[in-house]
């Protein structure tokens, strides 16, 4: 059964990175079957009808997989439903008459673009620094040659489920990116295919992460906010690997910065 909800929204509006920002209040009535982003679409249609510029927000797949969407909803990254990206949050999670505050991710590593949209390219820089297994096209051995125990493959997949949305950073009091970085790194560090570059990858990814983001002090807020419920165990694994990497890489000395 569809019910209609009357809502009051407080939305962060900011025309550009160097412009002043402020909250604007909007009221709207939507069906509880609508998703959070469909609710914003609806508000935007109304704004356009009244000759006001629509609210900018990032989104694409609307299936919780591309990682484009993400806003702070009443101070929570991706809002109240656990394990759910903003686009998969449905309005039935809100009561009729709710007041909802909507803000962009706020973190120094994610500069604001406009309204609710931020720049997360720092994540790409972390991956570029070492978040891959070097294997040129055509150089791969037969796929079943190296067996991967099912539990290892499953653990790698748990890490690989990260959608790169940045909620972990937004939820962290230090704006750290440890959950993202560790998930991306541990997927590869767990697999037999990822061993050759393991220590080098670890050191490079951690150090690139530190250029953009704050330090992790184990609050665990990231895990609570993560739409894919990536566990902070991966951070512990990353920290352990980083210590080992420092040692291993020093031993190998000159070898590691090549290429």
């Amino acid at each position, binding site marked *: *059964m*569809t019910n209609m909800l009357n809502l009051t929204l407080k939305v962060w509006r900011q025309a550009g990175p160097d412009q002043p920002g402020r909250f604007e209040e909007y009221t709207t009535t*939507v*069906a509880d*079957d*609508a*998703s959070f*982003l*469909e*609710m914003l*679409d609806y508000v935007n*249609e109304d704004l*356009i009808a009244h*000759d*006001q510029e*629509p609210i*900018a927000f*990032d989104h*694409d*797949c*609307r*299936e919780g*997989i*591309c*990682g*484009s969407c993400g806003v702070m909803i009443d101070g929570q990254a991706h809002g109240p439903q656990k394990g*759910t990206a903003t686009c*998969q949050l*449905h309005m039935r999670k809100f009561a009729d008459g709710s007041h909802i505050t909507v803000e962009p991710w706020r973190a120094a590593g994610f500069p604001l*673009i*406009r309204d609710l*949209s931020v*720049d997360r*390219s720092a*994540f*790409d820089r972390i*991956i*570029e620094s070492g*978040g*891959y*297994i*070097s*294997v040129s*096209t*055509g*150089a*791969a*051995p037969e*796929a*079943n040659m190296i*067996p991967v*125990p*099912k539990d290892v*493959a499953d653990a790698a*997949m748990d890490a*690989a489920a990260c959608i*790169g949305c940045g909620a972990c950073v937004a939820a962290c009091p230090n704006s750290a990116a440890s959950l993202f970085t560790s998930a991306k790194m541990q*997927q590869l560090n767990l697999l037999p*295919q*990822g061993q050759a570059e393991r220590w080098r990858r670890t050191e490079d990814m951690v150090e690139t992460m530190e250029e953009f983001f704050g330090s992790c002090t184990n609050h665990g807020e990231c895990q609570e906010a993560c739409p894919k419920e990536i566990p902070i165990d991966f951070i512990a694994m990353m920290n352990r690997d980083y210590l080992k990497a420092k040692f291993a890489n020093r031993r190998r000395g000159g070898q590691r910065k090549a290429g």
Partner: protein
Amino acid sequence: MALSLDSHVPDGPLADKWTNYKFDLKLVAPHNRRRFTVIVVGTGLAGASAAATLGELGYNVKVFTYHDSPRRAHSIAAQGGINAAKNYKNDGDSVYRLYYDTIKGGDFRSREANTYRLAEVSVNIIDQCVAQGVPFAREYGGRLDNRSFGGAQVARTFYARGQTGQQLLLGAYQALAHQIHAGTVQLFNRMDMLDVVVEDGQACGIIARDLLTGETSRHNAHAVVLATGGYGNVYYLSTNAKACNVTATWRAHRKGAAFANPCYTQIHPTCIPPSDEFQSKLTLMSESLRNDGRIWVPKDPADCGKDPSTIPEDARDYYLERKYPSFGNLVPRDIASRNAKSAVDSGHGVGALRNGVYLDFAESINRLGEDVVRERYGNLFDMYERITDENPYKVPMRIYPATHYTMGGLWVDYNLMSNVPGLFVCGEANFSDHGANRLGASALMQGLADGYFVLPTTIAGYLATKLGTTPPPITSKAFDDAQADVDDRVKRLLSVKGTHSVDHYHRELGKIVWEYCGMARNKAGLEQALSEIPALREQYWSDVKVLGDGESYNQSLEKALRVADFMELAELKVRDALHREESCGGHFREEHQTPEGEAKRDDENFQYVAAWEWGGPDIQRDAVLNKEPLVFEDVTPSQRSYK
């Protein structure tokens, strides 16, 4: 003027063509590769894999995407899996069988040699992805697991939970990131390609618009590769990501590239039915669910509103199992979709809006246990519950077909080059491998086959002829004109200042195309659409309301440019559907069906690729039809039977 559409399919036996062709192809020596600049537009499976591989080979690559990161491309959303003829299950699979299934699944409307090559390189794709660290599902012994998909009687689909596209794309993205780091590839993110530049009949660059600043810029290259995805969003509601659009290929079409078979679209049978007018997109429930879910509707329309658990077995119609006993719930998509439509149209639809059919897991849960079902489909079930607020472990899912994939696209030859020299097209953006219907788990395969293995090989044959040349400078007249045209389009859209939003018009267009050119089409309806679309387009250009300016981040303007191109493509698509007086695959003309209601092909008159050439803005009058006859040397087209 008729185009010369030479497919450049090499001679020789089917199974040897690709090997021999690679040997005969001109090469570019390693030290010469960095002298060539190649533009790749798109970072989905096709674009990311192509750009990474070209970078590895040593070419100088510029890659463009309108997304903030290459990893966000629509490919990320693919759930079910990727086919490959590994025959790990020892169930009789082979390259030949995968090829045969694909060409038959496509209702004998694809090019034999391309389809065979696709099956041939499929095995290399899996090797490559595993080496990159793609965490495919494994068996306890550590070997790769497989499942089966529609249109096949073997288990050849590799998968990573319900996130296969995500994992494959991240593998390609990471390979791309490696090349960006190495400096062979330069990334242009949040950049929208708005035109292809053609000089002396050859593609030599693009015009792109920076989405954050609104600035347009010119980029030249020895060759341009479009890997920009499909045009399913012409229907407004589809399973595609919201930003998917036709602009890149449509603009190339306007610059001379033939658009092939635009009427071939795939309506996927298992999507969540729309719930209300706020609906902004439709969500796919992976086809893999048909492995363990049974599709049914109540036999008696009077039961349709009842709690499904109270409807006894003998009052249910498992219509696919009844009509197609050998494939059952795993018939190809077009057949499953049409049957769902007829169930709903004949009053057997279920759900509050009576707009769905059941996909029921009760039997599998009994047989396998809830844990096994959760392990296989857990994330899909969760997604379903989040959207519908119903628990599919307890109540059958409700599903209905939705637009999903476009088999049509820019015409390409065996080299994946369009009829405009230097303009290559990969992935869903081209037309080549799936004919009139694509089998599940074959788009990921095609995107990666094109990007990792085919294009990086064939492009050398073209580039080798350009050794020692530089692309035309960006100050040339062709670039001036193209950029002026883009700037003018932006200005015009901003200056209309009309009364209705871009989304309003997109939705209206979608309604027309869905109504008249959706799952079932007929002459009268298509003619109706041909009168409505140009009228809507005219209204759009005189009434659309795009607020804001062209010098900052303006999402309405972005969409407005895309919808303008959809308005044109829609007309060509309907025109194509009207001309094709037969039913084949996803193109079902009601006038052409067998007594049992199956698609009836007309091989005598329509065994060809319809490659349309831009003739001017009055599309239905001026578009020029070119035909590439489909020659089958290996298989004999037959009436598809899945009974």
